[in-house]
């Protein structure tokens, strides 16, 4: 096996595992701020106690997210050193800025959030919660800036084979930054919201910790409903941007081979690369043209218009994109039912719906992973779109056996971390908020 292929596997593993946690951090951070704000405004103990419970869970998610995140920052140098040399002038800056402007903020104030409740004033504690929330979102922004530049590079020229920055603002706020940021953040909020809604639903099913479970369910479900509908807007904006700036990726996600006027929106299918054909295709006529150009007859470019060597892996790009969209539809349906039950005051008694919330806990995170895969795999063969191919971006001095060794190492560590994450998470949930908030930091 060649080193480039192994480095791809390792990066996919490291980023894929890491990306389980940041969406939950974003969503849980928001829920903590909501509860702290309610406590500050109403002075009701219950909101403080809910927040205490959330902070404990947040700490676990945050610890694993941080430790697996460091691996990624190192990876550009260890496994993709040619990439680092070629585009470091632009790509390095957002990573450094993330550290200085965002990561310090969340990491320093999480110290106050975890252990400082009795040491600082109520307002200062609220501010700390807010700064952790704000820092994690700002951190997400810088990472999205870096990633968006790989998707739709701007603000640079190529000099002597290296990308050289000509305009920082254009590079940072490029064609896809805003859309990608909003779509990712809302995905995180959804993940956190359903995570807490599912946990609360379990308490209600078990008829325990109801003082906590009911308000927690209400708050998180409202957030879930709002974000599930918001996500249609951000998703649409993002898709239109992809269609206009990375048409080949859009064609792959839609399994569209021939360019068509009045192109259909694909709902289901099995695209086969070798035959240039999509089997069992189900599509809604003209909808793709309408969604991208607001005109049923505009032509959408198909894959056959581009040289084959520039095609991303079609099957996986298509399927990951469709699973994400399908899950988005499911969340909207669940939200609509939830809103109805909430409005009719039947939420706490509708057991089947509570079970549904419980069993769908991991789905928004899976949707985030799928969306990320569609975006990154759909960008192939490029590491930086139309600038640098992934195959030319890897380190030249790292032998394949060393990468294989570290893949094995990361697989073992990440499997163990995941098992322990689930173990400690379920342990905390089973103990229940009442018990958990009594335990001290250590």
């Amino acid at each position, binding site marked *: 096996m060649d080193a480039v292929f192994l480095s791809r596997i390792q990066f996919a593993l490291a980023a894929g595992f890491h990306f389980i946690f940041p969406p939950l951090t974003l969503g849980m951070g928001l829920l903590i701020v909501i509860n702290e704000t309610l406590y500050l405004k109403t002075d009701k103990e219950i909101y403080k106690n809910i927040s205490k419970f959330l902070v404990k869970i947040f*700490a*676990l998610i945050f*610890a694993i997210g*941080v*430790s*697996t995140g*460091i*691996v990624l*920052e*190192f990876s*550009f*140098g*260890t*496994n993709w*050193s040619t990439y*680092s*040399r070629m585009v*470091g*002038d632009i790509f*390095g*800056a957002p*990573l*450094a*800025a*993330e*550290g*200085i*402007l965002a*990561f*310090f*903020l969340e*990491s*320093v*104030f*999480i*110290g*106050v959030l*975890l*252990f*400082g409740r009795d*040491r*600082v004033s109520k307002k200062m504690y609220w501010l700390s919660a807010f700064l952790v929330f704000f820092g994690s979102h700002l951190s997400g922004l810088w990472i999205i800036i870096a990633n968006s530049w790989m998707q739709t590079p701007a603000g640079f020229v190529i000099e002597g084979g290296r990308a*050289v*920055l*000509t305009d*920082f603002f254009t590079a940072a706020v490029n064609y896809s930054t805003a859309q990608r940021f909003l779509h990712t953040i809302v995905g995180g909020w959804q993940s956190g919201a359903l995570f807490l809604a599912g946990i609360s639903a379990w308490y209600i099913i078990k008829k325990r910790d109801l003082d906590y479970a009911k308000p927690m369910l209400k708050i998180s479900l409202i957030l879930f409903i709002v974000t599930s509908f918001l996500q249609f807007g951000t998703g649409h904006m993002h898709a239109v941007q992809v269609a206009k700036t990375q048409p080949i990726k859009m064609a792959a996600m839609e399994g569209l081979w021939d360019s068509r006027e009045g192109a259909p929106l694909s709902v289901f299918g099995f695209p086969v690369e070798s035959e240039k054909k999509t089997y069992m295709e189900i599509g809604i006529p003209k909808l793709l043209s309408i969604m991208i150009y607001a005109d049923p007859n505009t032509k959408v470019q198909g894959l056959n218009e581009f040289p084959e060597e520039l095609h991303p892996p079609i099957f996986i790009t298509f399927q990951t994109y469709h699973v994400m969209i399908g899950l988005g539809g499911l969340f909207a349906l669940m939200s609509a039912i939830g809103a109805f039950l909430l409005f009719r005051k039947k939420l706490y008694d509708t057991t089947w719906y509570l079970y549904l919330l419980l069993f769908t806990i991991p789905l928004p995170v899976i949707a985030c992973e799928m969306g990320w895969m569609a975006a990154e795999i759909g960008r192939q063969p490029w590491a930086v779109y139309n600038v640098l191919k992934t195959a030319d971006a890897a*380190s*030249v*001095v*790292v032998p394949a056996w*060393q990468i294989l060794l*570290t893949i094995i*190492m990361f697989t073992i*560590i990440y499997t163990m*971390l995941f098992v*322990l994450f689930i173990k*400690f998470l379920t342990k*905390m949930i089973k103990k229940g908020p009442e018990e958990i908030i009594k335990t001290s*930091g*250590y």
Partner: protein
Amino acid sequence: METLTMLQITWFILIGILFAGYAVLDGFDLGIGSLLPILTKNDEKKVEVLFKSIGPVWDGNEVWLITAGGALFAAFPHAYATVFSGFYLALMIVLFGLILRAVSIEFFTLETENKGIWAKTFFIGSIIPSILFGVALGNVIMGVPLDADMEFRGNFFTLLRPFPLATGLLGFTAILMQGLTYTMIKTEGEIHATAKNLAGKVWYGYVILFVFTAVISFAFVTGSACNIIAWIAAAASCASLFATRMFIGEGDEFKAFLSSSLAFISLWGIAGALQYPVLVRAINDPALSITAFNASSSKLTLSVMLGIALVGMPVVIGYSIYVYRVYRGKVR
């Protein structure tokens, strides 16, 4: 002087400051981790006290490494690319340690039976990077084989030469001293006594390794004899090392910690002054060395980054001091 040259020099210094900041701050919690079995004798209550002393702050300390790494990437992409790909396996072992220690404190809190295992993993996760960081720096100072494309042409065993191993141990003793003096600030009773006793012994190792590596460095780096900044840093190292010893003896914990920190910063000062402007020395041909001038980003990137650092870092330092003040005093 040209603007680009000035920016390159400024970033050479700033990267040094970021790494020194990391060494001083994460140094104490790495040091505590590396000494955990000795300081606590596997008594869970004592582990708890030490974890409480670093719990609220270690996370922010580690961000200094992430920021230093990011800044190296942004300012000197070639240095970042060469070192990180060249020292591949060693860095992966460091990452293994950093992951392990990051989750250990959290898991220790959540575990009910057999908490001790997470004290052990914290120890392992701390001692590995504590030694390897210095080894990596020693290699960069001594030099590694580089080719005309700035690529590393050694192997894993290139990294394990005697001089880098000596600097690895020097860095390790410096980290231990940070950990011990910080433990003295934050604890009382038995742990405090063990730390104080140990600090006295570690000090001798620290001094011996310091003299050994400093003499070799000054002897082999050309032009070191008239490098005034290096001599000033060396003098500061000696003075602060003796001050550390004195304050440990007097039981003035806070000043002992400050002196130990100053000694550590001075070590970075010596390294930086002797290295300048070299980032990664080429042992095979000095002309192939990676320097601040041939490995840097463009003028625009360096200026934007400088703006971000000058606005951001004072704020970071400000609120970090605030949080340290919130948790001042002995852990009970």
